[in-house]
């Protein structure tokens, strides 16, 4: 320790100095590649429950370059699980992504976060290739499939989170190595999708059910998504391939998947 005093002015240390460094405690985690984390450009798709928690965790962890996409505005019933929204936001006329970006800058003014207003379907390979990683914080299967296919095609890692009441799931998709989200889906998923998009003959009706959602499961799932992002960027092994969380039992299981030979995302 004393040796440091004799190596030049730059190495002079002062009592309490580590506490001046915002990320000192993160730096103490030996395997975290903080440079890679801070250099990376992350896209968060969805600025609702999971999106709020994911952005909060990314910013506090030390990520510096974020874009966040959402098409919605805040409603008062969002406030039971969205840490970055405030009473009155529902009257502000601002989009969720604008509010999330605004509040994220309050957590750390150094973060570069760009709000994007729009649908998931606006994201194609051209848009996605500029990112190092995509974190999916969505609420429906069709949007997930779109993001999954386009990020897989663009070879951008995609970490998908999902919740339903006290249950949650995180899948880590690293193209072209791992199976993708579509590989895990079966007729029950497509039936849900069909139910959401019903064609009346004149129009397509999008049915958006109100799902059970609360903060404890949301925060667990979001934290796992961000942790897997940090692990991947730091060159650590990530969850293979999907983690299911049961908040009522207090259990989680990591399950293996295999690529579906008929999945169109693996034919390219």
């Amino acid at each position: 320790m004393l040796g440091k005093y004799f190596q030049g002015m730059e190495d002079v240390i002062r009592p309490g100095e580590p506490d001046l460094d915002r990320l000192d405690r993160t730096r103490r985690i030996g395997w975290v590649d903080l440079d890679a984390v801070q250099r990376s450009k992350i896209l968060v798709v969805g600025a609702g429950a999971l999106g709020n928690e994911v952005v909060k965790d990314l910013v506090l962890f030390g990520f510096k370059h974020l874009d966040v996409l959402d098409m919605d505005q805040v409603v008062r019933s969002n406030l039971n699980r969205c840490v970055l929204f405030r009473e009155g936001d529902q009257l502000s006329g601002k989009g969720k992504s604008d509010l999330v970006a605004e509040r994220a800058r309050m957590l750390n003014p150094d973060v570069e976060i760009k709000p994007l207003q729009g649908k998931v379907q606006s994201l194609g390979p051209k848009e996605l290739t500029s990112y190092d990683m995509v974190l999916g914080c969505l609420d429906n299967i069709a949007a997930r499939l779109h993001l999954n296919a386009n990020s897989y095609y663009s070879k951008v890692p995609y970490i998908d989170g999902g919740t339903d009441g006290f249950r949650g799931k995180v899948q880590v998709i690293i193209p072209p190595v791992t199976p993708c989200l579509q590989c895990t889906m079966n007729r029950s998923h497509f039936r849900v999708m069909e139910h959401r998009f019903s064609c009346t003959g004149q129009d397509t009706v999008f049915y958006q059910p109100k799902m059970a959602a609360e903060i404890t499961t949301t925060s667990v799932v979001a934290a796992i998504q961000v942790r897997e992002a940090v692990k991947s960027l730091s060159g650590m092994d990530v969850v293979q391939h999907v983690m299911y969380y049961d908040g009522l039992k207090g259990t989680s299981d990591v399950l293996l998947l295999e690529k579906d030979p008929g999945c169109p995302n693996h034919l390219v």
Partner: protein
Amino acid sequence: MVVRVRIRNAETGATVDMELEGENSVEEIIEGVSAYWEKDPGAYVIRRGRRLLRGQQKVQDLDLTSSEELELIPDPEGGSR
């Protein structure tokens, strides 16, 4: 070939035995037990030990043996609204 496997409902812990033929698919198992337990419409998957089975896989390709236990798990799709 007929095998009799036990399916566990991850949400309730309930079990039911199901007779399967080689041609049956994992999707048919999901539909069969979902109907039996009158599950809410939603997405489900089947777990076998540490593996998640693909919906299109056939029983004959899985080498399922009698008295094996599979588990029906809801696949959460919420998270934004």
